[in-house]
């Protein structure tokens, strides 16, 4: 049950806390167990999405709409996207070097590297695997939005647990 002191926290702080770390908004309201269950499950879902589809499933530049949903999980999505973009640059340099060595364009070089199982910096996920991984991460983000709205509702209405 949220304590009166916890309920006195301004709702913007609760909302931002819930975005920065899933479940923290509820924890600040004195509902630590609820915050732990909700936040823990959403983080597990997000990480599972990354493990299923690879870092490729979080892409602010090529999948902007999906990223809009994924971004609601908090800074974790932006960290994953940053890592993805850096790996993209590294892979581009790797593919360019291979293309130069074999006199191929970038697209042909990447295709040949994939077909011949060359060790790439990271592998792009395609098809169902990419869909499932992207969905896991996006659902985690959207569910966190639900959690933030619930925490804000409890903070403003002073609801009992």
């Amino acid at each position, binding site marked *: 049950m949220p304590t009166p002191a916890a309920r006195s926290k301004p709702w913007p702080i609760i909302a931002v806390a819930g975005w920065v770390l899933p479940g923290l908004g509820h924890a600040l309201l004195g509902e630590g167990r609820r915050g732990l269950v909700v936040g823990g499950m959403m983080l597990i879902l997000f990480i599972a999405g990354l493990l299923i589809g690879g870092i490729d499933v979080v892409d602010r530049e090529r999948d902007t709409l999906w990223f809009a949903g994924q971004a609601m999980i908090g800074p974790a999505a932006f960290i994953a996207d940053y890592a993805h973009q850096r790996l993209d640059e590294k892979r581009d340099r790797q593919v360019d070097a291979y293309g130069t060595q074999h006199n191929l364009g970038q697209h042909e070089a990447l295709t040949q590297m994939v077909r011949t199982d060359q060790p790439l910096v990271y592998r792009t996920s395609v098809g169902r*695997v990419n869909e499932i991984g992207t*969905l896991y991460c996006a659902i985690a983000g959207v*569910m966190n939005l639900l959690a933030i709205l619930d925490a804000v509702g409890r903070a403003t209405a002073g609801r009992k647990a």
Partner: protein
Amino acid sequence: MMYELSTSSLEPQAASLVLAAWRPLLDPLDLHHPWHAIALLVPLVVAIAVVYKALKLPSLQRLVGETARLSFYIVALMAMAAAILWFVVEIV
């Protein structure tokens, strides 16, 4: 589970080499059969049910039972919808 999903047609030694080659976060899982994707929807449904019930229940004491019930309903409804759509596409 990784062995069953991606290497069922290989000898165990080759399968272990394939498993060792997977780099977490850098490589996607090796899932090509349609049933793999369907199987991965079940944990997603359970996670959604856990979060939803954890937010809605006044007390978390009945969380496990309520989550199991909601998960069953969602999966059952999805299966029914799939059956109806299959019937419409294949038969009608």
